[in-house]
């Protein structure tokens, strides 16, 4: 009898160590703890008093477009896709932005690996995540089987998936720009301090479409404007002076898919603020970098808005 009570007691003790969560959301916060050691003129209080920006009304009415070019420096067909992306950007410099993601469906594929000839590592951890996430190896049925491939604001209407081949980028971009369906607005401000290489990014996200019911995520990408390095060309030769454009180098907060604004907290016409601090790695020239800040839909993956912002 004593043994039975002992066993029942043990089980009862362990049963009590289960947590049940009825409301899964914590009290809402929309700021990130910032690293004020990157601010050379004082600490948090000084930064808040002297540097913190105040946003005015966002008067933008245009939906911008982001071209994602999944590419690789050993992919001989990839320069063809890069030409399409650059042409779209050049034709619409204030509305079309490019993120060249060096990744394949398996993440780091043979096209992206470095070797004695292709010595520049143009990949980043977040880009590898994108490749895997949107590639056919993880996303069932995705047509993204190899490089080159890409997306136009991750719009799915063309293929049923948020990716598409480069021969449809131009038509999809034209269609979306013409429709100009702006669901979310973004504005941003930055403070860069060269002595510490510290960057502070402040963003304001404004939900314009009351019908959005999915979780939204805000992503801040670091992009290198240009880099001269080897690239395999279509005839399998190597162009050692190829100019790589708009190389995706990572996300400021390390979150490939961004920070969440959960659906339960989205209010009509609500404004939400996300702030970042980031130390620019020594390898980058601040004048050769820019940021792409975008908002994605967690269900459809569509990017509702993207803006370009310089670091300085």
């Amino acid at each position, binding site marked *: 009898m004593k043994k039975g009570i002992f066993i029942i007691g043990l089980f009862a003790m362990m049963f009590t160590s289960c947590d049940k*969560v009825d409301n899964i959301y914590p009290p809402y916060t929309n700021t990130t703890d910032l690293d004020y050691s990157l601010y050379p003129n004082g600490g948090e209080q000084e930064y808040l008093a002297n540097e913190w920006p105040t946003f005015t009304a966002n008067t933008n009415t245009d939906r911008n477009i982001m071209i994602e070019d999944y590419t690789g420096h050993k992919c001989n067909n990839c320069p063809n896709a890069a030409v399409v992306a650059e042409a779209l950007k050049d034709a619409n410099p204030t509305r079309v932005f490019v993120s060249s993601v060096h990744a394949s469906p398996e993440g780091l594929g043979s096209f992206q690996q470095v070797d004695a000839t292709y010595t520049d590592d143009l990949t980043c951890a977040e880009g590898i995540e994108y490749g895997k996430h949107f590639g056919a190896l993880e996303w069932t049925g995705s047509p993204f089987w190899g490089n080159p491939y890409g997306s136009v604001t991750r719009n799915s209407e063309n293929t049923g998936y948020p990716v598409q081949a480069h021969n449809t980028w131009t038509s999809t971009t034209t269609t979306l720009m013409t429709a100009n369906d702006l669901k979310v607005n973004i504005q941003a401000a930055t403070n860069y301090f060269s002595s510490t290489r510290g960057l502070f990014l402040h963003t304001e996200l404004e939900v314009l479409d009351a019908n959005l019911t999915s979780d939204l995520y805000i992503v801040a990408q670091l992009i290198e404007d240009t880099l001269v390095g080897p690239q395999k060309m279509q005839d399998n030769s190597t162009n050692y002076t190829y100019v790589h454009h708009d190389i995706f180098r990572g996300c400021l907060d390390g979150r490939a898919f961004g920070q969440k604004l959960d659906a339960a907290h989205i209010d009509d016409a609500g404004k939400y603020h996300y702030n970042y601090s980031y130390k620019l790695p020594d390898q980058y020239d601040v004048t050769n970098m820019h940021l792409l800040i975008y908002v994605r839909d967690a269900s459809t993956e569509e990017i509702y808005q993207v803006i370009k912002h310089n670091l300085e």
Partner: protein
Amino acid sequence: MKTTYALLASVLTFGAWAQQNGPAINGNIETTFQYLNEDPVIEATQPPQKGLLNSYMNVFYNDGKFKAGLRMESYLPRIQGYPSTFDGTGLGMRYIGYQNDFVDVTLGSIYEQFGNGLAFRTYENRALGYDNFLDGARVIIKPGRGLKIKGVYGYQRQAFLEGQIVHGKGLVRGLDAEWNINSFKESWKNKKLNVTIGASFVSKYQKDDREDLILPENVGAYGGRIAMRYKKFTLNGEYIFKGQDPSFDNSDIYNTGHAAVINFGYSQKGLGIMLAAKSVDNMSFRSDRDEKLQNVLINYLPAMNKVHSYNLVASLYPWATQPVGEIAYQGEIVYTAKKNKKVFGKYGTTFNANVSTAYRPNRDVSVYNPLDSNGIAYKTGVFDMSDSLYWRDVNFSIYRKLNKALNLRVSYFNITMNNNVNKVAAYGKGYINVNVAVLEVGYKINKKHSLRGEFQTLFINKVEEHVVDSYGDTTLQSVLNDRGNWITGLIEYNVSPHWFFSVMDQINLENKASVYSVNHIVDPSVKNVDIFGANLPGVHHFYFSVGYIRESTRITIGYGRQRAGLFCVGGICRTVPASNGLTLSFTQSF
């Protein structure tokens, strides 16, 4: 590190002393070395080091009451396809313990299983590259009368990096009680009906490290089981419930989970029948909610399909258990007919038929409201099955010994697998359906010499595929699914008791018409040649091996191409990439 080697030295010294004084020391060593070549035809790559090495040595000491064990492991670096969580040289497992008739206490690396493992199982499979032991303490108490109580507490082995054990983030606690009712009274022990009941509770603790969600830090799984045996019949079942456990695997939903298995068996001389059923939903249970693949799994969900041994069946399209959810059934019958010698031969004929299926659970998503704050994504029940097929395997084999020297086995397999759910084939689309036929012949030349041969064919379904060329133009083509059709031929020659020789060729027949080829073998500089440089039709995978066995020592040398595939044990799988090169292996037991 010094501590590690001091511990190793002391255990071995003590072991040497003990061996001279009676207690038993045993263990085993295994070393596998690979030298790999670049082979663009089969997409095999050469690692920068060119040579790869896996080694380990187990040493177990036992004197009846005291026990100890350790395993040194070495991956310099790991062989191709082995998980990246194995790296470096060091002590990968170690334990000490004491046991008598009443208590069994172990400290260190714990391998343990509660019931069928639905709530808790830690185990090691070297071939698979799987090791999730619990580093902590285990106590087993046997109060008598058939009652056994087990308690475990610790952190799981997540990886072995730079020669060090790396633990998972979560703390695991478990308690299990099992009672063989027949042992309660002496007069019940010889009853024809034998009944054992049991109950388990396992809990994990992991800190809530998310800003955007409130996560349950303590997640529990609990349930009960019963096993009965009556004459030639066996019946056992287990049900485990799991609390809210938002994780990477379930996309952070707050549903509860369950796993249930039922096994029925009947056996008599010449006849065996097995029926089994399994219901699983949201039952991925890891000690780190952010982990994936095979890392830090606390529980084990048994596979409900036959483990095949012929290579075209076993490693091209195997089924991996779906911890997120599946309803699975299996039935098998084995019958040996002997009565009619004219029909079934002098030695009889053995028939084996097996059927297994797995379906998606039926999930009522109407209960889901994205604006709700409870995180419940759907509603389902035990054995609540949808009509969405995941897996079906219908197979049979006939084995007959024709005379003292010659035997034959004919087998057929029809497998349908939803590649969208169980992503086995990288280039496969939707449902993969294959028909596999195998003829196996064994011939005993004399007492020492024997031959064995296999001929296997695999035919796969066709799919409509949009194929994009290098200019971005798309055309719709009807192409063979995945990598197309295959045949395999194998001849083994055994010289008992020491030598064996084998040669095998696996041929990917339809390489020019498959999705795989259209999309991926596009480099005109890649010539489709085999390892001899010959341009035969199809893609050939010649593989030669020679082995030498002497007592408990076995040395094997293999050379050739090995195609990419999946290696699965009990529903747990790892991807093995294509390779071309030399493999040397050495095993020794003592």
